[in-house]
C-alpha cells in the first residue's frame, strides 16, 4: 500500500507541470501570446498545490496521519501543562512499572518454558503410598514403568545426596546425584565436553564413570579438557577404585525441580545407577522424570500409569496394602505449585494498583476536559464531529500512556532490582527474574490497555458538547452533572480498590507476624550448624567430643536432618506398633531421623518424658527410639508411650542397608517443624546414630561467641580429627528458620509496598478531586463567606461533600474484601481470611486518609478572600 502510494505520487508534480505545458501550447496554437497562454493554462488548471494535496489525500492512510497530528498536538499540550503531565505520567509510570516488575516474576516462573529440550513434554511422576502422595519411586517401580510405558519415550530417575569431591585438593562438600544413565540427555542437549552416560557405565558400581558439572570443571580443574578420563581417588579409601570423569555437563545446565522434592539445583557430580537388578523391596529410591512421546497427553500418560500401578498392586502384596498409585504432572506446573498462588495474588494486587492509577489519570483528564471545554467547543463549531473529537482525546491519552510506559521501564528496572534483593530463594531457584523482550512487550500492551481504561470515559464525556454553553463560558465552568458524578464514582472505585488491596495485605502481614512467633519446636538462637564428610560412629563421635572442648560451647550433637533444612533428601518410612493388625502395618508413615545423644538439647527441643539417647544405645543393646508427641498421641492416646514397641526400618549393618526392626520407645519429644513453619507433615521417630548411620549435620549450641569466631574454632577442632574433612553449609538455625519464612516475607513486603502505593494514589486522587471541586466553587464559597459563613461552615461543607464517595468506596471495598477473602485461605496462617481486626484497621486507615485528603484542599478554601473569590472567573 505504502509502496504503491509512493510510486503513484512520485510523478504527480511532473504530470501537473506537463499538463500545464500542453495547455499552454494549445493556447498558443489558439493565438495567445506565450505569457497570456501560460497564465490562462494555470488559471484553468486551478490551485496546483491544493490539487496535489487532494490527490495525496486519496492515497494517504488518513487515520494514521490524523493520528500523528493528534499525537503531536497531545505532546504539545503535555509540555504546556507540565504539572498535569507530571502527575499523570508519574502515576502511570508507577502503575505500569509495578505491573511490569511483577510480570517479570510471573513470566520467569510460571510462563517461560523450562530451559530443557522438549520442555513441554517433560513430566514428573510421583508414587503414592498410604497417605503419602509425593513419594519417590523404587528402582523396581521405575523399571516397571519404563518397561510397560508407551506414553513416555523416556523415563529416568535421579536421587541427590551429599558427598565430597574425590581426589586431591582442599576438601569440598558437594551435591552428588545418582542418575539412571538416560537422565542427562533428558534435560540437556549435549555435554560441554566428553560424553553423557552409556548403559555400560552403570554396570560396574565400583570404579564408576562419572559426569561433573561445568562449575566443578572450572573451579576444580581450571576447565582443562584433559580432565576427561582422569581418575579421582579418595585418600581415605572410601572408593578404592576411584572414579573416572567421562563428561562435563553444559555450562547453563541447572536442575529446576520441585522444591518439595528436596533436589538441589547445584549438583556437581553425577553417578550412574543401573535399572537392572532391582529387587521389589530393594533400596535406592529415585525421583522419576519422564518425557512424553510426541502427541501424548498428560491424561493418556496418567491412564497408562494407572494400569501399571494396578498391575503392581496385583502382583506385590505390599503395594496392595499401601494402596500404591502413580501420578504424573507437568514438570513445570509441579515445580511451581508452592509459589503459584502467591504469585497470582501479587499479580492481582499489582493489577489493582494499575487500576487505581488509571482511575487517577482518568480523573485528571476529566478535570482537564472541563477546562478545555472552550477549545473543544471551537473544534466542534468549525466542524469536528463527535468521533473526531473522541479520536483526538484518545490520541492524547495514547501519548500520555506511551510516555508513562517509557517512564515505567525505569520504575520496573528499579523494582526488579529490589525484588531480587529480597532474595526470594524459592522463586530464584525456579527461574531468572529479568526484564526481557517478553516483559517489554507486556509493558507496551499494558500501556495500550490503560489508554482504554483511563482515556475512554473522559474522551466520551469530553466530546459531549453543548455548543452554545461551551462557547459562552470561561475556561473553567461549573461542572456539569454527568462529569461531577463520574468523578465521584471514580473516587469511590479508587477507594474500594485500595480497601481490597489493603485488606489482603493486612492478612498477609498478620500471617508473617504469626510466622515470626510460631513455635517451631526448637530454639533458633545460638545454634550453628554445618555438614562434613560422612563417616561411621567413631568418626562422628570423635568430632562431637572435640567440638565440646571449645570454650563456651554448651552442647554438640548431629542429626541426619536439621529442622527446616532441605540439604538432605527426607527420610521417611512406614511404621506400626506392636499388635497392629496386618492391614494397618503398611499405612502409617513417619519422618525418621538418625541422631547423636544431646540432639534435643543442642537444637533446643523439649523432651516431654523419658530419656535422651546415650552412647550405649547401639546395636548390641536393646534397640531404642524416641518419638514425638504427635506419634505418641496418635498411637497410644491417653497412655504413656514409654516402653511401647514400634516396628520401623533402620540400618544397623551400615549406610542404607535397611532392615525391619523392633524398637522400644524410651522418650517422647515435642514435635519439631522439619518441613515448614506452618504444617507438621508427618510424626517423627528418632533412632540412635548407631542403629542408622548416615551422613549427618552437626549442631553446636554456644552462647556469647560470635559466629565467625565459633566457626574458626570449629574448623581448628575439625582439623584435629581429619584435615581433609570439609566444613560445608555453615548456617545458624535462625537462618534456616528465616529461610523458611522467606517466601511469606517476600509476599508480605511486596503486598505492603503495593498497598502503600495504592493508598498514596487514592490519597492523591481524593485530594486532587477535592481541590478541583474547591476551585470550581471559588465563587460560591466567596459568596457564602461574604454572606457570613464561617471558616468552619465552609470546611465542614467541603469535607462532607467530598467524603461521601470515600465512604461509599469504603463500604463497597469492605464487602468485596469479605467476599474475596476465602480465595486467600491457602496463603494465610494464624489468621482467619475474614479477620474482623484486619478489616477494622483497614477501614480506620482508609477513613483517616480520606478525611486528611479532603481536609487540606478544604482548608485552603477557607483562606479564600471573599472579594477576590467573587471576581473569580
Amino acid at each position, binding site marked *: 500500500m505504502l509502496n504503491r502510494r509512493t510510486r*503513484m505520487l512520485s*510523478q*504527480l508534480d511532473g*504530470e*501537473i507541470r*506537463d*499538463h500545464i505545458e*500542453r*495547455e499552454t501550447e*494549445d493556447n498558443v496554437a489558439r493565438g495567445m501570446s506565450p505569457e497570456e497562454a501560460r497564465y490562462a493554462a494555470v488559471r*484553468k*488548471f*486551478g*490551485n*496546483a498545490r*491544493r*490539487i*496535489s494535496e*487532494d*490527490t495525496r*489525500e*486519496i*492515497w494517504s492512510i488518513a487515520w494514521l496521519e490524523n493520528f500523528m497530528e493528534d499525537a503531536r498536538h497531545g505532546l504539545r499540550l503535555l509540555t504546556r501543562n507540565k504539572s498535569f503531565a507530571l502527575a499523570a505520567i508519574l502515576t502511570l509510570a508507577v502503575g505500569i512499572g509495578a505491573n511490569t516488575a511483577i510480570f517479570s516474576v510471573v513470566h520467569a516462573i510460571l510462563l517461560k518454558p523450562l530451559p530443557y529440550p522438549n520442555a513441554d513434554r517433560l513430566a514428573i511422576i510421583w508414587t503414592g503410598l498410604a497417605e503419602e502422595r509425593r513419594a519417590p519411586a523404587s528402582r523396581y517401580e521405575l523399571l516397571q514403568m519404563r518397561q510397560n510405558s508407551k506414553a513416555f519415550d523416556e523415563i529416568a530417575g535421579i536421587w541427590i545426596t551429599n558427598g565430597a569431591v574425590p581426589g586431591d585438593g582442599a576438601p569440598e562438600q558437594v551435591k552428588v546425584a545418582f542418575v539412571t544413565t538416560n537422565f542427562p540427555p533428558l534435560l540437556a542437549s549435549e555435554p560441554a565436553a566428553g560424553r553423557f552416560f552409556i548403559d555400560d557405565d552403570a554396570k560396574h558400581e565400583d570404579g564408576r564413570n562419572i559426569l561433573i558439572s561445568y562449575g566443578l570443571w572450572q573451579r576444580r580443574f581450571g576447565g582443562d579438557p584433559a580432565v576427561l578420563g582422569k581418575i579421582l581417588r579418595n585418600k581415605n579409601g572410601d572408593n578404592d577404585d576411584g572414579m573416572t570423569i567421562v563428561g562435563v555437563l553444559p555450562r547453563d545446565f541447572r536442575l529446576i525441580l520441585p522444591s518439595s522434592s528436596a533436589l538441589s539445583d547445584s549438583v556437581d557430580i553425577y553417578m550412574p545407577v543401573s535399572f537392572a537388578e532391582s529387587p521389589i523391596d530393594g533400596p535406592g529410591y529415585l525421583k522419576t522424570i519422564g518425557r512424553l512421546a510426541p502427541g501424548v497427553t498428560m491424561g493418556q500418560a496418567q491412564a497408562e500409569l494407572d494400569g501399571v500401578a494396578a498391575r503392581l498392586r496385583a502382583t506385590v502384596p505390599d503395594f496392595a496394602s499401601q494402596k500404591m498409585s502413580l501420578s504424573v504432572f507437568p514438570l513445570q506446573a509441579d515445580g511451581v505449585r508452592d509459589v503459584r498462588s502467591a504469585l497470582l495474588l501479587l499479580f492481582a494486587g499489582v493489577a489493582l494498583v494499575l487500576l487505581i492509577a488509571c482511575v487517577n489519570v482518568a480523573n485528571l483528564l476529566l478535570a482537564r476536559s472541563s477546562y478545555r471545554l472552550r477549545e473543544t467547543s471551537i473544534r466542534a463549531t468549525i466542524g469536528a464531529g463527535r468521533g473526531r473529537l473522541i479520536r483526538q482525546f484518545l490520541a492524547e491519552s495514547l501519548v500520555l500512556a506511551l510516555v508513562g510506559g517509557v517512564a515505567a521501564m525505569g520504575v520496573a528496572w528499579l523494582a526488579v532490582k529490589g525484588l531480587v534483593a529480597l532474595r526470594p530463594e524459592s522463586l530464584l531457584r525456579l527461574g531468572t527474574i529479568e526484564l526481557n523482550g517478553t516483559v517489554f512487550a507486556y509493558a507496551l500492551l499494558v500501556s495500550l490497555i490503560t489508554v482504554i481504561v483511563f482515556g475512554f470515559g473522559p474522551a466520551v464525556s469530553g466530546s459531549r458538547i453543548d455548543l452554545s454553553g461551551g462557547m459562552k463560558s470561561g475556561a473553567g465552568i461549573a461542572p456539569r452533572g454527568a462529569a461531577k458524578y463520574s468523578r465521584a464514582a471514580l473516587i469511590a472505585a479508587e477507594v474500594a480498590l485500595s480497601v481490597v488491596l489493603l485488606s489482603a495485605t493486612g492478612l498477609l502481614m498478620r500471617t508473617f507476624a504469626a510466622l515470626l512467633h510460631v513455635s517451631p519446636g526448637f530454639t533458633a538462637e545460638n545454634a550453628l550448624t554445618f555438614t562434613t564428610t560422612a563417616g561411621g560412629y567413631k568418626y562422628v563421635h570423635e568430632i562431637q567430643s572435640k567440638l565440646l572442648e571449645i570454650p563456651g560451647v554448651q552442647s554438640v550433637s548431629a542429626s541426619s536432618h536439621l529442622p527446616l533444612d532441605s540439604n538432605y533428601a527426607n527420610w521417611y518410612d512406614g511404621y506400626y506398633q506392636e499388635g497392629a493388625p496386618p492391614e494397618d502395618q503398611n499405612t502409617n508413615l513417619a519422618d525418621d531421623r538418625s541422631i547423636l545423644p544431646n540432639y534435643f538439647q543442642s537444637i533446643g527441643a523439649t523432651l516431654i518424658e523419658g530419656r535422651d539417647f546415650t552412647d550405649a544405645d547401639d546395636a548390641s543393646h536393646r534397640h531404642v527410639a524416641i518419638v514425638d508427641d504427635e506419634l505418641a498421641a496418635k498411637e497410644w492416646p491417653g497412655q504413656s508411650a514409654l516402653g511401647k514397641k514400634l516396628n520401623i526400618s533402620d540400618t544397623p549393618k551400615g549406610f542404607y542397608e535397611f532392615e525391619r526392626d523392633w524398637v522400644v520407645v524410651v522418650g517422647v519429644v515435642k514435635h519439631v517443624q522439619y518441613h515448614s513453619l506452618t504444617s507438621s507433615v508427618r510424626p517423627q521417630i528418632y533412632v540412635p546414630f548407631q542403629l542408622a548411620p548416615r551422613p549427618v549435620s552437626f549442631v553446636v549450641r554456644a552462647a556469647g561467641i560470635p559466629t565467625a569466631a565459633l566457626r574458626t574454632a570449629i574448623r581448628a577442632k575439625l582439623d584435629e580429627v581429619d584435615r581433609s574433612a570439609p566444613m560445608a553449609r555453615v548456617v545458624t538455625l535462625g537462618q534456616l528458620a528465616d529461610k523458611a519464612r522467606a517466601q511469606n516475607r517476600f509476599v508480605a513486603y511486596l503486598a505492603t509496598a503495593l498497598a502503600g502505593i495504592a493508598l498514596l494514589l487514592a490519597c492523591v486522587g481524593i485530594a486532587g478531586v477535592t481541590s478541583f471541586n474547591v476551585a470550581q466553587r471559588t465563587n460560591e464559597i466567596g459568596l457564602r463567606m461574604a454572606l457570613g459563613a464561617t471558616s468552619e461552615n465552609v470546611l465542614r461543607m467541603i469535607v462532607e461533600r467530598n467524603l461521601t464517595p470515600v465512604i461509599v468506596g469504603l463500604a463497597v471495598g469492605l464487602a468485596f474484601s469479605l467476599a474475596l477473602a476465602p480465595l486467600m485461605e491457602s496463603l494465610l496462617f494464624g489468621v482467619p481470611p475474614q479477620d474482623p481486626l484486619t478489616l477494622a484497621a483497614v477501614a480506620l486507615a482508609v477513613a483517616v486518609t480520606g478525611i486528611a485528603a479532603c481536609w487540606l484542599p478544604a482548608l485552603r478554601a477557607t483562606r479564600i478572600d471573599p472579594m477576590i473569590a467573587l471576581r473569580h472567573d
Partner: protein
Amino acid sequence: MTTREQERIELLQGTLDLLILRTLRVGPAHGHAIARAIEVTSDSVLQVEQGSLYPALHRLIKRGWIVADEGTSENNRRAKYYRLTAKGRRQLTVETGKWDKLAAAIARILRPAKQED
C-alpha cells in the same frame, strides 16, 4: 466572471468519474488529453477545472477501474497514460445505466407536461 464562463455548467458530484471512464473507453490517454476530450465532446459546455481531474484519476486507480502506464507521447515526451481495466469497463456500464435513470427521473420531474403532450 465573464458571460461565457457563466454559461458553463459545474459538474455534478461524481459525474467526473463517469466522464473519465467514458473518455478512456476509446483508448488510453494522458491527463491533458482526457481534460481536452471532455471539453471538446461537450462542446465546451462542461466546465472542468482541469486540476480536479488528477484526484479523480487517482481515486479511480485506487478503486481498480483504471491503471496508469508509462509511455511516450506524440512529440516524444514522457507521459503517463491512463487505461480502462476490465473492472472499469463493467463499472462504466453500471454507472452509465445509473446516470440514464437519474437523468430520466430528473427530466420527468422538471418537465412533467412534456409527458402529457
